[in-house]
């Protein structure tokens, strides 16, 4: 069953029929497994990875290190929720090390990052400090290399 989701993770457009052929299991079994995973939110969403700058749309990514004060009952969860609920936040992780939350933001321009940090994030009472790192260049995202090296030509036939 794990292999159904490996195929889908690599290609969200793979149909149950195709997956059934690839794995040699009945279509109905594949459909059932997918439905169950969707209901359990094991499949969160079907998305497409887009390299926006190639389509002429600029975007700005930043990683913000956030130090926070944990709450007595809920630890980091409550403050994390207040932060990740902002639509600017693309990903949010609780991390070990010198800061607590790693926040990845994706916005239209630098101005938006700065207003997000100064107006939304920093003023939260449990936020002690923030350090913002702007991304200068994207080499690999979601497991995909953005500029893959030139394809080598294999011999079209070999015995």
């Amino acid at each position, binding site marked *: 069953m794990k292999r159904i989701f490996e*195929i889908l993770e690599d290609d969200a457009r793979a149909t149950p029929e195709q997956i059934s*052929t*690839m794995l040699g299991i009945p279509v109905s079994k594949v459909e059932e497994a997918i439905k169950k995973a969707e209901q359990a939110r094991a499949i969160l969403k079907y998305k497409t990875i887009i390299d926006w700058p190639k389509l002429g749309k600029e975007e700005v990514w930043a990683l913000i290190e956030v130090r926070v004060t944990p709450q007595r009952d809920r630890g980091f969860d409550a403050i994390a929720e207040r932060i990740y609920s902002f639509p600017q936040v693309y990903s949010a992780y609780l991390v070990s090390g010198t800061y607590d939350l790693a926040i990845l933001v994706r916005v239209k321009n630098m101005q938006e990052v700065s207003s997000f940090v100064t107006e939304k994030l920093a003023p939260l009472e449990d936020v002690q400090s923030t350090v913002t790192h702007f991304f200068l260049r994207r080499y690999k995202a979601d497991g995909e290399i953005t500029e893959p090296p030139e394809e*080598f030509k294999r*011999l*079209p*036939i*070999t*015995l």
Partner: protein
Amino acid sequence: MSRIKSAPAKPFDSFICQKVDGISPSGIRKFFELLSSTEGVVSLGIGEPDFVTPWHIREAAIRSLQQGYTMYTSNYGLLELRKELAKYFELHYGLSYDPQREILITVGTSEGLDLSMRATLNPGDEVIIPDPCYVAYSPCIVLAGGVPVTVPTTSENDFIIKASDIEPRITKRTKIILIGYPSNPTGAVMSRGELNEIAELAQQYDLLVISDEIYARLVYGVEHTCFAGLPGVREQTILLGGFSKSYAMTGWRIGYVVANNQFIEAMTRIHQYTMLCTPIMAQMAAIEALKSGEDDIEMMVKEYDKRRRVMVKGFNDIGLPCFEPKGAFFTFPSIENTGMTSEEFSEKLLMEEKVAVIPGSAFGQCGRGFIRCSYATPLANIEEALKRMGKFVNKHRKSRG
């Protein structure tokens, strides 16, 4: 006064030795020329992984170059590599080989094949091989002075070579049984039981078995049986293996021979004078492959397995009966019901639909009526090829009425 001639007076042919002259160029050379002059071809003719060597393996080779590992190694190959191989055989097959005396690192499995023939054959000695089989078997036997004796295999038997078909072909001159399973071109895999019968035969007639197990790691839903691990035949088995297929390392040219010390010594005598040693960078890469390449194999096998099922189903759906191959990365569908020979089929398919496949006849008489199709190519290519082939088969079936 010196005379400058543009060519020798005798015909060039007379300079070429008879043995080489007798070897016909690969049957698909004409086909290859046709292919290289055609645009937009989807090729199912590829005999190597479509993956690039995993990064950690390439990285290990780069590091070794930076550190200055650019020298000769022992004729046998780096001891560290031989030790890793010994561990590998212990782990996978419970077989113990002495890395000092029973392992030789070769320039691809191809060199191992050549060495094993040259080290054992006297003129006229006979070598039993399956038909169809890998294209190099017969020429390597002939070049070493031996005589290939083919044993027909059929799609009804899933292209395995049967001990009962071998036995009647054994003569006083028979010295070797040369087998290669999983098979290129058919994708056939032999079970432990079937191999055991051959092992018994080898013992009964005192024959040497050379087992080409280059595709050992590419099996689907079945287990590969290492011939040397069968009861009683370790000492009379020469095992050929390599890194090309399991770790996608074809261009590195690195393989190995594992056998009793007497055989390894004999082969090393040839290897030391003709090759000296396998390139050190390839050996460094191979060490890394053995140490941490298992996940890569698992990933590639999963990927091949998906494509394999898509291809087999695809061929059966378009009316080209295809037995289910359990190894390597080839399918071997029958094209007999199109009324064409394998060559006609392959040539017309290339010209009319721009799909390249290899005529089965390139691999022996018994390959007639079949084509070899490789799934070492992305799924999208396979699906496109199947679409075009479906159209092709349909058209020709109609035109025959």
